[in-house]
């Protein structure tokens, strides 16, 4: 399966009469763009903004981040099963506006899974989005049933974001890319003998699926991840839109949809394929909340990996707390099957740093990468502009905020937990954890 991603490197975004891209500048026609948003009558209010690195802007509650892109060939949509019918992705050509994102922010109401992004100041570096220009959709909906709920499906806004990101992405559909990334991985059984002699590796992402009601969890081709068993995916499928992020995870642990199609772990494994490893592909797993389901998923991951002949595995847990059980169980099952495993996730050490960092432990989980600590406290200065509503951090049950954490002057104290995707379990994290 071969996928070409044609990249257009966006240095700046501006509003203008047409939506087009030229020499590093993405111009967006605001009215046309908002028309796409308002296609869903559940959207009651919407406005578009542009934020750039260095702007004194704080965004909260951020619900999702998308890369603006479109299918050129090999499919109709980069959101199969969601905004378009179910269809395979991962081959043909996709064009992407690179180095920028579309952020979806609630006008007022936040939820447990929403987060904060600062475009400047001490917390700019806490998320990758602080270092890129972003088109920002700020909206409100008529989803009364969840208006005051801590868990929100955020459906209208998230789907609006998907539609909008594809609308803008289409402006480069017929252009010649500045760079083409080629992602190719031959069928497992058709690899040259010199490739087969390299140590073979699987990537095992465990996507967020802790809600038992539908509408919150990460989706695979539009299917709820809680209702799936571990399965095999070609890495191209993920790079081309097969996984949509869910709306449940405490925010710093979340892997945004943007990060799935830019997944640096997959890209590194693909680049190393044929050189240092034989990348067998992705064994996709989940993080359900019933012990038997955790055990079943861990077992099946190990079975699939073993049947593929994996020598090594990298397990990434999109979460903390009870999902740590899935994480450790899966690592242990892989190790028991003789597959050398590295784990990658964040920790939760409590505010004083002394709590056990993972809820479950096992000596066999002896190779772990730590991408951050949800409990880390941060003091943020006030920001000139807030897109969204600052008080949502304190009022709406965001994972790292609490009543009173937002001061009158706009300064904030919060846990890392509430930074948008800041632990970058996708692999982007430039943080680790250390003992003091």
């Amino acid at each position, binding site marked *: 399966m071969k996928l070409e991603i044609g990249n257009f490197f966006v240095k700046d975004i501006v509003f203008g009469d047409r939506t087009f891209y030229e020499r590093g500048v993405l111009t967006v026609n605001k009215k046309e763009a908002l028309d796409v948003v308002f296609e869903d009558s559940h959207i009651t209010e919407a406005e578009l903004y542009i934020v750039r690195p260095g702007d004194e802007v704080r965004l909260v509650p951020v619900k999702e981040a998308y890369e603006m892109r479109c299918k050129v060939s090999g499919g109709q949509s980069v959101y199969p099963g969601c905004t378009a019918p179910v269809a395979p992705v991962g081959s043909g050509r996709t064009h992407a506006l690179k180095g920028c994102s579309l952020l979806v922010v609630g006008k007022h109401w936040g939820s447990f899974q929403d987060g904060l992004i600062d475009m400047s100041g001490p917390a700019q570096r806490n998320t990758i989005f602080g270092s890129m220009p972003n088109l920002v959709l700020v909206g409100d909906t008529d989803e009364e049933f969840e208006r005051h709920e801590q868990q929100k499906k955020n459906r209208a806004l998230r789907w609006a974001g998907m539609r909008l990101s594809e609308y803008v992405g289409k402006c480069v559909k017929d252009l010649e890319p500045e760079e083409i990334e080629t992602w190719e991985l031959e069928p497992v059984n058709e690899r040259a003998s010199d490739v087969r002699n390299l140590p073979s590796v699987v990537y095992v992402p465990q996507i967020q699926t802790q809600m038992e009601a539908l509408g919150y969890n990460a989706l695979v081709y539009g299917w709820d991840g809680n209702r799936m068993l571990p399965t095999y995916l070609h890495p191209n499928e993920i790079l081309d839109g097969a996984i949509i992020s869910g709306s449940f995870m405490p925010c710093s642990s979340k892997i945004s949809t943007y990060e799935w199609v830019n997944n640096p772990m997959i890209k590194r494994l693909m680049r190393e394929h044929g050189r240092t490893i034989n990348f067998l592909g992705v064994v996709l797993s989940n993080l359900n909340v019933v012990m038997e389901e955790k055990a079943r998923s861990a077992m099946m991951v190990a079975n699939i990996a073993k049947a593929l002949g994996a020598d090594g595995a990298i397990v990434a847990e999109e979460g903390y707390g009870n999902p740590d059980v899935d994480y450790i169980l899966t690592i242990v099952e892989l190790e028991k099957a003789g597959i050398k495993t590295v784990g990658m996730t964040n920790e939760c050490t409590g505010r004083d740093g002394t709590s056990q960092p993972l809820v479950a432990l096992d000596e066999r989980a002896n190779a772990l990468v730590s991408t951050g600590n949800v409990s880390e406290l941060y003091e943020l200065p006030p920001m000139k502009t807030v897109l969204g509503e600052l008080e949502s951090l304190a009022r709406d049950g965001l994972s790292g905020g609490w009543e009173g954490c937002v001061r009158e002057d706009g300064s904030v104290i919060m846990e*890392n937990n509430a930074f948008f995707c800041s632990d970058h379990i996708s692999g982007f994290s430039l943080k680790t954890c250390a*003992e003091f």
Partner: protein
Amino acid sequence: MLKAVHYINQFFGQVGGEESADFEPVLQEGPVGPGLLLNEAMKEVKITHTVICGDNFMASHPEEAVARILKMLEGLKFDVFLAGPAFNAGRYGVACGTICKAVKEKFGVPVITSMNEENPAVEMFKSNMYIFKGGRRATYMKQDVEKMAAFADKIARGDKLLPASMEGYFPRGIRHEVFLEDLGLEPKCAADRAFEMLLKKLKGEPYETELPIPKQERVPIAPAVKDLRKVKIALVTSGGIVPKDNPDRIQSCSATKWGAYDISKLDRLMAPDFKTIHAGYDPEQANKNPNVVLPLDAIRQYQKEGRIGEVDDHYYVTVGTGTTQAEAARMGREIAQRLKERNVGAVVLTAT
């Protein structure tokens, strides 16, 4: 210039050796002994006072010793508290840890000490204070002092403190997230770190996990003794059975000492020649018949019957109540060493 108080024991305080171990705490002006080296090494901190206290006084009367020392410090103005270095000296290390912990709790100042990794006080106190990794013996004085001094200076200057492994002290069990660039390290993303770790693991090369999982207590299984008659057996107990005058003054609680007592001429332990000093259980039965805790009589019977061969001339004892894991481990190591020296091949240990 910050002010510091320095704690040392009777030996380093130039009072005397083991015979002066019961030396009661005193406060002196200025640095003493290793304090002079420490003082010279520090650029931003100076030692205004020194506390000298006998290791035994602290070990036997910790509450009293601490109370007196805290009182001495009450009138003083100081910003940092330093102790040791204590190298591998168990009692001295525990003393440093004890006083540092108390000072930190009462005065809220940073406390810094130094010990060798095998000092049992490390396990006991590392979560409460900065214990710098030190050498085993006083020959390492200069290096250990320099490390303490450099860190004291860092604190004085308000420098950003790095993780324990980079600063050189025993990790205190406090984990924080850090940006790699803040550690002066190349900001490598997690994906690259994970890949490189996996490659090393696959190749069998050493790598360092970013989240060490604490080890579970497991002891390798000793092979079975083929024939007990050919092996010397020793009796050991944590039940505190000692000769009637407790000649080594083993403590009844929180023991830090163990004893070895001659039973070569005995067929059984007789009261009142032997008794228990263990404060953690009702002593009535043990004092009536010490064999219920240390079964010498049964062992001798088996010896007579030819079931077993030689029995060590001595039995070995300490008290297992309140005794810290670290102290017990140290004593265990020391007893094991003695057993090895005496060619013992099997042990029956009774615990209460």
